[in-house]
């Protein structure tokens, strides 16, 4: 136990004293915190427009700027030209799109010149329901065209209804009616749980792939710099491999915890700025956290031991990625099954995957977060996964001891098992 603690302490020191590890952790935490905290500060004016839901307040602002008494010098300057005279009442049309300053032009050329000279955009009316949107540089968030399209369509619809002798206001009233429903969810709300489950599955994917490679690299490095010869004759291989894998687990949990925690803390203080629209990401129930910790951690340890074994079977760090491909592929398959099954977490594939230790870390977690799973199923899956972790830890220690003293070409896993039996 003392040797395990010594190895653990040393390996943790390798992570925590590494400048790149600390810088990456701090930077990512700052980026996540900033991504949560800053948008409400910087996007206060346009925030609601971009993310929806705050349309009324933005409309009010727009209307006030359209009035002559409340002239807003910052309001966008738009042009409109109707050389053929399709619209009898241009002012009536432009009033439907408040919040902008409008200039009327007689020809397409004048309209183009206006836009070239700095106008924010222009509309050349070319017929009933048809027009051309003229803009100099169109930005990604440009919504002028869709706004104008809406008012131009409604303008002509109303015209035609009037010509047909139907009151447009009555039609509008009828069309505005909608059903009012309430929802009674007896199980889990997959729609609102989906995104944080998605993020946590992704976090686990990142941890396994990134830290798995780091653990394999750490072992191969000791092999390639020959430190392993002294280590395996000084410490029992179980302490060595468990120390390395658990140090990787602690570092991974620390890093993920700091990064996710920074986001949670930032949202705790800035949630109001988002009108709590990100609750679907940050309000994670305790049972989901518990499932993530148990299944995520066990799954992480399972793959960490596999990566540790692979690290012991190669002699050069550049051989790791090639040798690790089968294990990476198994984990990627597990990830894809879960991602696919998240839309319907009770499908048969997810049920099967949630009991196979190589896939249950992702699949059972997703089922717990999104579907209905009986406690017995959870316990059986967790016990199977834990037993596999213990077995792989034992096997990893054996292969580690044998593999670390075999230099040269990478040793195949099956070959290692055969040699192990011979010893």
């Amino acid at each position: 136990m003392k040797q395990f603690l010594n190895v653990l302490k040393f390996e943790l020191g390798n992570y925590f004293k590494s400048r790149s590890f600390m810088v990456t952790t701090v930077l990512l935490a700052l980026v996540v915190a900033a991504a949560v905290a800053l948008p409400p500060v910087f996007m206060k004016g346009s925030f609601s427009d971009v993310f929806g839901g705050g349309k009324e307040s933005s409309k009010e602002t727009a209307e006030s700027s359209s009035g002559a008494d409340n002239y807003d010098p910052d309001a966008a300057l738009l042009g409109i030209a109707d050389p053929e005279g399709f619209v009898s009442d241009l002012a009536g049309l432009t009033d439907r799109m408040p919040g902008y300053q409008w200039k009327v032009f007689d020809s397409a050329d004048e309209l183009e010149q206006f836009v070239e000279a700095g106008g924010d955009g222009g509309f050349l009316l070319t017929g009933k329901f048809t027009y051309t949107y003229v803009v100099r540089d169109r930005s990604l968030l440009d919504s002028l065209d869709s706004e104008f399209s809406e008012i131009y369509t409604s303008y002509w619809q109303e015209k035609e209804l009037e010509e047909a002798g139907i009151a447009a206001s009555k039609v509008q009233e009828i069309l505005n009616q909608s059903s009012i429903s309430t929802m009674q969810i007896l199980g889990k709300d997959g729609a609102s749980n989906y995104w944080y489950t998605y993020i946590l599955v992704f976090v686990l994917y990142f941890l396994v792939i990134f830290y798995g490679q780091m653990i394999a690299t750490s072992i191969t490095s000791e092999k390639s710099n020959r430190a392993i010869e002294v280590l395996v004759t000084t410490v029992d291989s179980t302490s060595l491999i468990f120390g390395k894998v658990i140090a990787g687990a602690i570092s991974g949990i620390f890093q993920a915890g700091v990064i996710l925690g920074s986001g949670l803390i930032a949202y705790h203080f800035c949630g109001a700025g988002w009108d709590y629209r990100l609750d679907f990401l940050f309000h994670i129930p305790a049972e989901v956290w518990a499932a993530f910790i148990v299944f995520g951690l066990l799954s992480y340890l399972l793959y960490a031991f596999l990566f540790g074994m692979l690290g012991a079977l190669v002699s050069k760090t550049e051989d790791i990625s090639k040798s690790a491909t089968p294990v990476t592929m198994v984990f990627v398959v597990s990830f894809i099954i879960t991602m696919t099954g998240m839309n319907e977490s009770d499908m048969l594939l997810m049920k099967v995957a949630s009991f196979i230790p190589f896939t249950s870390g992702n699949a059972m977690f997703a089922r717990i977060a999104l579907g209905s799973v009986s406690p017995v199923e959870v316990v059986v899956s967790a016990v199977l996964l834990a037993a596999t972790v213990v077995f792989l830890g034992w096997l990893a220690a054996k292969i580690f001891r044998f593999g670390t003293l075999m230099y040269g070409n990478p040793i195949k896993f099956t070959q290692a098992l055969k040699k192990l039996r011979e010893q």
Partner: protein
Amino acid sequence: MKLEVKNLHKSFGETEVLHGISFSVESGRALGLLGRNGAGKTTTIRILMQVFGANEGTVLLDGVPFSPKKIGIGYLPEERGLYPKKTVTEQLMYLAALRGMKRTEAAKAVKHWLERMGVEDYASRKLETLSKGNQQKVQLAATLLHDPPVIILDEPFSGLDPVNSQVLKDVIREQIEKEKLVIFSSHQMGYVEEFCHDIVIMNHGNAVLAGDLRELKKTFGHGRLVLSLNGKSGEETETLVRERYAGLVVPDGIHADHVVLKMIGETKKTDVFRALAQADLDVESFGDYRPSLNDIFVESAGDEA
């Protein structure tokens, strides 16, 4: 303490690489484990270190099964290496902790051994910034940090310049004087001859020769003489011996300036001496043949040393 290796057999798959190795070594004495590449030295050492087990045979320390981790062996592997990116002190402290030393005790031992090896100025430097020789001295410090009663050194002199070799020789001598049990594997026969009381010569997984080095030298020299004549090469001397003394001796080895002669049947040294004196030859040297370790090794393990 007495370490006894008895009848070790080891197979990898269908191939048996050790065919019953036996030897013993006691405290205050050093054993030289010699052999050509692939002779089985490293496999024997790895069985001693319990990296893997033997298929057959036992290793006993004072009559009880040997447990290297309990005893605390100082092992300097042939494949040397520590952590290149770690400072010298950091890695020595880590190894000391793994060997069960307390922090203060370890710090004291690290300081002592770095000073003893003459590398105390590099204590806070990363290992990769040190020369190969100094790295090797750090590795030897790592081997001896915990004051192990049993020391196994695999090719300790390879890569060392004469000055560093002298430091290492002094340290090994000190350890032998301190009644440590030292097992020493090397191709450099000169060093083995300097330190080792006992040797084991291994060849193709067999211990072809084992025992007290002085006794072995006597045994190997028994019945053999060495002769050199002034102004004559070894080959000329050999021709002369064949022509004149065929009834007494046969040449058993030709060197640049002398020959080794093997006495035939009941021939005594005095018979040969008398015959040489009567022939009025200009004898430069004549006497008992004392083989070098190299001669013994070549004769026992093949024609390459």
